[in-house]
C-alpha cells in the first residue's frame, strides 16, 4: 500500500516542480519581451520559422482533413437524405475544433520539436552559458522571441488550416460527390457564426502559447548529452500534444 502512495507522491511532487519551473520561465520570458534591448531580429526569424515555414504542411494537412471530413459526413448524412449539411458541419468542426487543434499538433511536430532540439543542443554544448558570459540574458535572447512567435502565428496557421479544410470539403462534397453547391454554401452560412470563428481564434492563441512555452521549457532545461536532447524533444512533443488536447476540452467547456 505504501509503495504506490510513495510513487504517486513522488510523481505529484515532480509534476508540481516542473509546472512551477515552467511558469517561472514563462514569467521571465514575458518580462524580457518588454525589456530593452528588444530582440527584433530574433523575433522575426522565429515568426518566419514557426509561421511561414509551417504554411506548406498546414495547407496540405488542412486540405486533406477537410476532404476526409466531407467524405465521412456525406456517407452518414446521405442515409438521412440531409447531405447538404456536410458543408455546415465540416465548417463548424474545422473552425471550432479541428483547425485550432490539428494545426497546433502539426506545428508541435514541425516547429516544437525543432525548438526543443535547438535549445537542448545549445544547452548541452554550453552555447547558453556562452551567452551568459557575454552578459546576454538567454531567456530574452532565445525564449521570449519563440514564445511571442508561437503565440502570434498559431491563430494565423489555424485560420489557414480551416480555410484550406473548407476548400478540401468543397472539392469532395460539391465537385466529387455532387452535393448542390448552393445548399452546401448556404449551410455553412447558416451554421457557422462569427462567434465560432472567434472561439477558434482564442483557442489558437492559447495553443500557440502552450506549445512554444512547453518546447522552450524542455529544450532550455535539457541535460545529459545527446540522450538528454532526445528526451527533451520527446517530452516537448508528447507533453505539448497532450496539453493541447486536454486544454481544448476545458476551453470548449468554457465557451459553450
Amino acid at each position: 500500500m505504501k509503495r504506490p502512495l510513495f510513487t504517486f507522491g513522488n510523481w505529484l511532487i515532480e509534476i508540481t516542480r516542473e509546472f512551477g519551473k515552467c511558469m517561472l520561465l514563462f514569467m521571465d520570458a514575458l518580462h524580457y519581451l518588454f525589456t530593452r534591448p528588444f530582440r527584433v531580429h530574433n523575433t522575426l526569424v522565429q515568426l518566419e520559422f514557426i509561421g511561414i515555414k509551417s504554411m506548406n504542411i498546414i495547407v496540405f494537412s488542412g486540405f486533406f482533413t477537410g476532404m476526409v471530413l466531407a467524405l465521412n459526413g456525406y456517407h452518414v448524412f446521405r442515409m438521412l437524405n440531409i447531405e447538404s449539411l456536410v458543408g455546415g458541419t465540416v465548417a463548424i468542426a474545422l473552425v471550432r475544433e479541428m483547425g485550432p487543434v490539428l494545426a497546433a499538433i502539426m506545428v508541435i511536430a514541425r516547429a516544437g520539436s525543432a525548438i526543443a532540439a535547438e535549445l537542448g543542443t545549445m544547452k548541452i554544448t554550453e552555447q547558453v552559458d556562452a551567452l551568459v558570459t557575454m552578459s546576454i540574458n538567454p531567456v530574452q535572447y532565445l525564449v521570449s522571441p519563440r514564445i511571442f512567435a508561437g503565440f502570434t502565428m498559431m491563430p494565423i496557421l489555424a485560420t489557414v488550416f480551416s480555410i484550406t479544410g473548407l476548400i478540401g470539403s468543397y472539392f469532395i462534397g460539391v465537385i466529387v460527390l455532387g452535393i448542390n453547391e448552393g445548399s452546401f454554401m448556404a449551410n455553412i452560412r447558416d451554421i457557422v457564426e462569427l462567434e465560432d470563428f472567434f472561439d477558434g481564434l482564442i483557442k489558437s492563441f492559447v495553443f500557440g502559447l502552450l506549445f512554444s512555452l512547453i518546447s522552450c521549457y524542455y529544450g532550455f532545461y535539457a541535460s545529459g548529452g545527446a540522450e538528454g536532447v532526445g528526451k527533451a524533444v520527446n517530452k516537448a512533443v508528447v507533453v505539448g500534444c497532450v496539453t493541447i488536447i486536454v486544454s481544448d476540452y476545458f476551453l470548449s467547456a468554457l465557451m459553450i
Partner: protein
Amino acid sequence: MIKIVDLKKSFDGDMVLDGVNLTIPGEKITVILGRSGTGKTVLMKHIIGLLKPDSGSIFVDGKDIAAMDDDELDLIRSHFSMLFQGGALFDSINVFDNIAFPLREREKISAKDVEKVVTQRISEVGLTGMKRKMPAELSGGMIKRVGLARALITKPEVILFDEPTAGLDPITEDSITQLILQTHKKSPTTFIIISHDIDFTFEIADKIAILHKGKIIAEGTASEIKKTKDPFIRNYFSG
C-alpha cells in the same frame, strides 16, 4: 585581482568544492591544475558567475560576486571572456559572425569597424580564409582558435580558458599553447586556465594552483610546485 575565500559547492549531496581558497593575480597566467573530475570547471564557472556557491566568497576587484544579482553580475561579466572546452560556438552562424557576436552585442561600433576588427582577429589566430565556414565544418583546433578570437574580441580584462588543449593532437596543442602565450605577451590581461596537462601548465603558467578533492592543496610558481614534497603531487607529476 580575484580572491576566492572558503568556496563550497555540492551537487545532490556530493561535495565538489570543499572550501577553496585561492588568490589569482592580475595580468598573469594562472593555471588551476587537477585530475579530471576534481571540480576545475565548477570552480571556473563560479569565477564568472555561471554557478552560485553554497557558501564562500569570490572577490573581483574587492566586490563579492557570489552575493550579486544577475544585473550586477552582467556588469562584472562585461570585463570577462571565456573560452569553453568544446568552443561553445553558435552553430547556426559562421566563423565571422561568431567572432563578431560579442562585439555587436557589447560595443556600439559600425559594421565597417566590426568587419575590420574581426578580420584582424581572424588573421591573428591563423584562420584567414575561413570566415564564411560554419562551426560544423571546423576541426577541433580551429574551433579553439575561433573560440579564442571570440574571447579576445572585446579586449576583456580577464579571460578564462577551460581545458584549451584538451582533445588536440600534439602539433595543434603546441600551436594553441604558443597562441595563448603570444596573446598574453601582446596584451597582458589576467588569464585563468584550467587544465590537467602538466607539460602545458609548466610551459605557460606564472602561477599554478593544484585542485584535489575540492581543495587547493598547493600553489606557487612552476619552480616552487616542482619542489613540493607532497606525495600526491609528486605521484601526479610522475604520472
